[in-house]
């Protein structure tokens, strides 16, 4: 009886995450609603991808001392909330144990890429180390991703990949393509944050994908590799087309977002946006995440190759439409 009960409980616990949710698009959104997710990037070529859309004025100062507010009690990475001497609060995500590649550098890089092409992002930066003060004294502490708790952004919960007015729109599809191109393996709703953003003319809602650190490696369900250039190069991006939809090498959770839903035109749209990021800006984005030129080179090679694949697919798609 005990064994049967245990087996049943384990089976149920293991089965639950495999249940694919149903994609449920609502009525077509207005352009205002689309702007909650994406805005056409103006003057993309002039954008600073080192400091990102929030600029150097909001970046953490490595010379300051940061006071511990509390240790991080959620998620899989260690971290903490700290307050700098100017009163700003930061969420710090540090490197995990076991010598696994840290998420922080990848998260900052991917955030810079998304914000460059028009997707909203919170203010995130990377500090390799910082000075921490807590009840036991002051010491140097390994750094990581610093996300500013900015007064203009209010967290209003999560949004769903499967439901809502944005599902199926071109920016939504394009966002998925960009994440697939970067082998982001964490397409879960818990990483989607709905922000209320206060700007001069009032407030607006932002649909933001954050916690982007599980990328640039292999995709997978149980233990995807991140920040692994060899694994990133090994796993295919696009494996073909079928029934008018693109097939991807993506092996992570929520295949329902990917299978039979993304067209060559979606891929071409995303590739066109990404191709407008100049080499100098890619340098800046990688440097923003703390990557050296040598460390970033193999990732950039793969990204370039994947962009070519996407562009070729888009061109073939357009040719087919022309016929």
């Amino acid at each position, binding site marked *: 009886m*005990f064994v049967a009960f245990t087996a049943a409980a384990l089976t149920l616990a293991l089965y639950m995450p495999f249940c694919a949710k149903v994609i449920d698009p609502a009525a077509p959104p207005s352009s205002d609603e689309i702007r909650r997710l994406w805005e056409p990037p103006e003057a993309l070529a002039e954008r600073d991808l080192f400091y990102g859309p929030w600029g150097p004025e909001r970046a953490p100062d490595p010379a300051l001392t940061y006071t511990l507010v509390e*240790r991080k009690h959620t998620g*899989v990475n260690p971290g903490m909330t700290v307050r700098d001497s100017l009163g700003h609060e930061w969420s710090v995500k540090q490197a995990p144990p076991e010598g696994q590649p840290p998420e922080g550098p990848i998260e900052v890089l991917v955030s810079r890429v998304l914000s460059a092409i028009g997707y909203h992002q919170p203010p995130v930066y990377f500090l390799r180390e910082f000075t921490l003060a807590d*009840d036991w004294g*002051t010491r*140097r502490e390994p750094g990581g991703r610093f996300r500013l708790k900015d007064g203009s952004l209010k967290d209003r919960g999560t949004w769903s990949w499967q439901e809502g007015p944005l599902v199926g729109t071109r920016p939504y599809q394009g966002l998925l393509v960009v994440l697939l191109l970067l082998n982001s393996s964490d397409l879960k709703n818990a990483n989607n944050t709905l922000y209320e953003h206060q700007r001069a003319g009032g407030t607006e809602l932002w649909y933001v994908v954050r916690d982007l650190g599980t990328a640039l490696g292999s995709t997978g369900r149980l233990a995807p590799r991140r920040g692994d250039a060899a694994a990133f190069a090994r796993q295919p991006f696009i494996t073909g087309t079928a029934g008018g939809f693109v097939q991807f090498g993506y092996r992570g959770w929520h295949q329902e977002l990917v299978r039979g839903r993304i067209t060559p035109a979606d891929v071409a749209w995303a590739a066109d946006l990404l191709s407008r990021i100049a080499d100098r800006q890619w340098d800046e984005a990688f440097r923003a995440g703390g990557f050296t030129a040598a460390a970033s080179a193999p990732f950039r090679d793969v990204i370039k190759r994947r962009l070519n694949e996407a562009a070729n697919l888009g061109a073939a798609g357009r040719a087919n439409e022309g016929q």
Partner: protein
Amino acid sequence: MRSINVAALTGSFALAAALALAPRAAVAQEAEAPPNPAPVVEGMLPEPHFLTRAIDFATRTAGDGSGEKSGFYPEIGSMVTGAGWISGGGGYRQWIGGDRMVFDASAAMSWRSYKMAHASFEFTKLLRSRLALGTEVRWQDYMQNPYFGAGPGTIETGRSEYRLTSLDTVGYARLRPTQWLTLGASGGWLRRPTIDLPAGTFRSDTPATRELFPLESVFAIAEQPSYVHNEVSVTADTRDHRSHPLSGGVYRTAWTRYWARDLAAFSFQRFEAEGAHFMSTANSRFTFAVRGWLAATDTAEGASVPFYLMPSLGGSNTLRAYSNYRFHDRHLAVVNVETRLALMTHVDLAVFADAGNVAARLADLNLDKTSFGVGLRLHTEKATFGRLDVAHGKEGWRVMFNTSDPLHLSRLSRRTAAVPFVP
């Protein structure tokens, strides 16, 4: 009965530990250099990729056991020694007000139907993190606890079993003048433990303790006494990781008093001194560990110690070639020596030797019971979560699988009374 000068022993042990472990350099006024991230210990052999990924997955999903995460967690491997090869359950932990308070509750059931439930609440950061105050209540129902009789001369075939149910409530305080030194004090109420016939799943034909040892003093009374228990302790801990240490040491001394509220003949006090030290060489590929543990019990003239609270020895954390709880008596001493070689990043090969004994008089303690063996350890950077040991001693071979490090002292984190005394 030999009287133990507890205060003197406690004080001298604490002083020795403090002198041995005091930081060599004064605290710097400026920020210290950032700690280098701990290097990954490379084993002698390349590790299969699936193993590395499985451990990565387990660490990411189940945590590293540090207790820093809020939310639900699996309660695995926390059951008492002898509960069966596996146990499982669930727990919920919630940090409140930043890091200032933590609530924790869990329940688990084991292979042999042992059951436990506990809840605790702690103020963690009083006096700028120097003081913690908390309370805990623990219920447990242990089904097949072994008892072979008292004394070092008992025979293996004289095994009996009993079921022990208890409910204990404690309040405790921990004072940490430095990050490595903890002064602890606790007081609790152990409500009449019940001794019953053994029960639970996968039970053998072992006779009940009441049948095999009817002359044990606890069977002369209708109900077991309730106990008020107090403990003071000093712990110095410089280990790098608690469940898979490569360097540093932990030294602990404790004095515990049990007042039987309605039967003074069962009141007693216990002194414990324990130390473990770990040293690594060759880029942490080779680790040498040594542990010693002394527990001594004192009673008034004519008083006795219930057998389930009597120090016991034997099993996977002490004398590994002997059964769990193989020996009971008023005093125990044990020494363990273990060397670990990093075969792979997450797999160690261990060679160990254990020696110890129990005695009715402190002067009669010796290390005559020995065991030797080898084992494999599966671990993350911070914690051992599986081990397979094969040990040999005078009572033959013994193979055991456990989910914790053999020198991981559960006594360090325990706050409720040890019922039964766990070796």
